[in-house]
């Protein structure tokens, strides 16, 4: 297994970090998190056109950069560090991932360039219940209505569900699961923004009451949809690894400069050893996220699902623990609204649930390993 990045990949990381250092400051995050859409269209446009970040993993023939999940993961790791507010996971990972894996050539040609160019914010609506995400149990239904379809059902916890322009929705036509494209303004479509614990990532609840949609897949999408979600799970783990690393950096920096009893608190073993344990977690989280991204990018590997389960279960717990320890190390200050520690803590909690919690991922992994 190769565990190193090319010079181009390292350069991409630096570029993204520089960009986010300017465009995703704490002040910006706080401003955006109080807005309904939770992102800045100007910045999104720059990410798409100047940095080609939105279409990183979209093939060049569809207007993308033609790179892979490895690059997407690197970019997301940096976004995790910076607590970037924007529809990257929904648009650049889930929606474009689903299009590439499930959709017809015509649909790819139609939607992918719009996504890559930053013109369209899109999302993928799958989950219906608050618990386990079970693709086989999805109930949202589609009924043929002339050349288009009518969708009925409720999709919950849809990433950027209230702000996306196009919603790709997994619905069942009889037994088979298909992918449908539904315009945000379609009649019969109700969108309710959810008040989120993590203000930096917006969620919506979408109710389809005979909402008009276009079918864009041919065969049953259960398998490619699961693959899409495994990909997004791997990329989300990279974001978590970045968040965990940033928490360690914040805690370490504070521990170096905060004096109590006449010494830097980082000179006390209670704090120093917490930081050391966080470091182990951060390095393990990175290994997990990189491995999952490599698995997604390497067509000769067949272990993406397992790698994603490993990455998400570990990175969720590592990020949560680092975010919690960061609060503890900051003491009372870390508990205030004005300090950013709580923003990472809430992000860590919320991202640990999306696509399945750690116990679920371990359950799936164990089943695949015969444990």
């Amino acid at each position, binding site marked *: 297994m190769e565990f190193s990045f090319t010079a181009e990949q390292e350069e991409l990381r630096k570029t993204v970090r520089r960009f986010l250092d300017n465009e995703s400051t704490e002040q910006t995050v706080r401003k955006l998190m109080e807005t309904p859409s939770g992102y800045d269209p100007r910045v999104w446009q720059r990410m798409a056109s100047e940095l080609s970040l939105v279409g990183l993993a979209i093939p060049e023939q569809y207007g993308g950069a033609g790179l892979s999940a490895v690059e997407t993961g690197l970019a997301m790791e940096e976004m995790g560090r910076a607590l970037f507010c924007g529809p990257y996971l929904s648009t650049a990972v889930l929606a474009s991932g689903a299009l590439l894996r499930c959709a017809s050539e015509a649909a790819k040609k139609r939607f992918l360039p719009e996504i890559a160019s930053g013109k369209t914010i899109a999302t993928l609506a799958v989950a219906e219940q608050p618990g386990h995400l079970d693709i086989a149990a999805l109930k949202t239904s589609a009924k043929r209505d002339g050349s288009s379809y009518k969708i009925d059902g409720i999709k919950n916890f849809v990433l950027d569900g209230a702000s996306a322009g196009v919603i790709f929705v997994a619905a069942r036509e009889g037994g088979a699961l298909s992918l449908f494209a539904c315009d945000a303004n379609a009649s019969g479509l109700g969108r309710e923004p959810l008040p989120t614990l993590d203000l930096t990532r917006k969620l919506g609840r979408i109710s389809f009451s005979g909402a008009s949609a276009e079918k864009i897949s041919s065969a049953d999408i259960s398998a490619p949809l699961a693959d899409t979600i495994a990909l997004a799970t791997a990329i989300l783990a990279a974001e978590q690894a970045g968040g965990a690393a940033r928490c360690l950096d914040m805690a370490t920096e504070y521990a170096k400069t905060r004096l*109590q*009893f*006449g010494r830097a608190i980082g000179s006390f073993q*209670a704090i120093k050893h917490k930081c050391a344990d966080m470091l182990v977690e951060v390095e393990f989280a990175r290994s997990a996220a990189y491995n999952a991204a490599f698995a997604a990018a390497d067509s000769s590997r067949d272990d993406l699902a397992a790698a994603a389960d490993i990455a998400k279960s570990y990175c969720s717990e590592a990020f949560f623990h680092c975010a919690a320890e960061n609060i503890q190390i900051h003491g009372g200050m870390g508990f205030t*609204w004005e300090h950013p520690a709580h923003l990472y803590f809430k992000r860590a*909690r919320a991202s640990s649930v999306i696509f399945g919690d750690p*116990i679920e991922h371990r359950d799936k992994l164990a089943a695949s390993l015969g444990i």
Partner: protein
Amino acid sequence: MPEHQITEEEVRERVRALLKEAHPDKTDQFTFRGKQFDHGLAWVHFPKGYGGLGISPGMQTIVADELHRNAKTTYDDMAINPIGIGMGAPTVLTHGTEWMKTNLLRRIFTGEDIWCQLFSEPGAGSDVAGLATRAVREGDYWKVNGQKVWTTLAHVSRWGMLLARTNPDAPKHSGMSYFLLDMKSPGVDVRPLYQITGEAEFNEIFLTDVQVPADRIMGKEGEGWKVAITTLMNERTAIGGATARRGGGAIGVLVDLWKSRAPAMYSAAHETVMRDRITRLYIESELLRMTNLRARAARKAGNPGPEGSVAKLAQAELNKRIWECAMDVIGGESLVYEPGFARRRPAANDHPSRLLQAKYQFLRSRANSIEGGTSEVMRNILGERVLGLPGEPRGDKDIPWKNIPRSA
């Protein structure tokens, strides 16, 4: 001393006498509790004349019991004036001037005067004795400048217990004095401090050229740390309160949430793993409760052991884990935060449903291992004071305070 021989029955008789004079169902809080104070039934272990009878503190439960038997209206000290009653009164009794004892204790008990505590500073958290707020003597007054933080109830308080540095040339512990601060004095600026929940339970206090009359000092000049210890000891006792009911408190909410979860929300394997985790938390909650009962029994027997000191550390860490687990029980719904993060002052019973309570407490409980002594400080205390392990080499104890390095 006949006081020491007051029997349980005599205490009950005194309560009944009080109730004949003033009944809580028929008078207001201030009137009734004022009479309770005058009858020596406010805090029975205080001396006569100061709201007590000079008898064992254990007898207070008899007072509560007898009041409960005979009246529908009951008052909770911790709701009325937690810092005044829990920490202010014992400090005034031990270190206050005669004027303070005579004029302040009764109004603390009735709740007419709410109290707050002004110890912590942005630069002095775990290291309270490193504080930098300065008090300089100017004639009949002390002029105070500095900043305090984490001050519960400051925005409604009449009096503040203020610890300030009066001699920066002395070593840190011996250069502080303890003042009674009139919170309405000019120069006292109280600002809400918003926390992770979006609420402002606490305040920041900015003190600018505040004048404190010279006779408002408690204990002697330079001996403020000694007075502060009295206050802090009573704080720890107040925090160490036990959940007396089996399966009550946080664990009760968790178990209820678990039992009422939607069927088949997760795989069977997931549910089994969660069940073991919840059972583990149930066990630890029970053992914390029992350890508190042991501590109470040991105190009663005049033989306090380490059980009490253990409770603060254990409870803080356990609470966080219980609410984390509750969020996992809630699953995807935990992504949604119905209470919102509106910046405001908290009110009682804000979160009536168990679901909302869990979400709120998940955030609020993060402070449990910080407030009233961080878990790291508690482990130092257990290691050094209970187990007798040696302290760390200290570079900040015997040099002038002003020479100790501190954060900007």
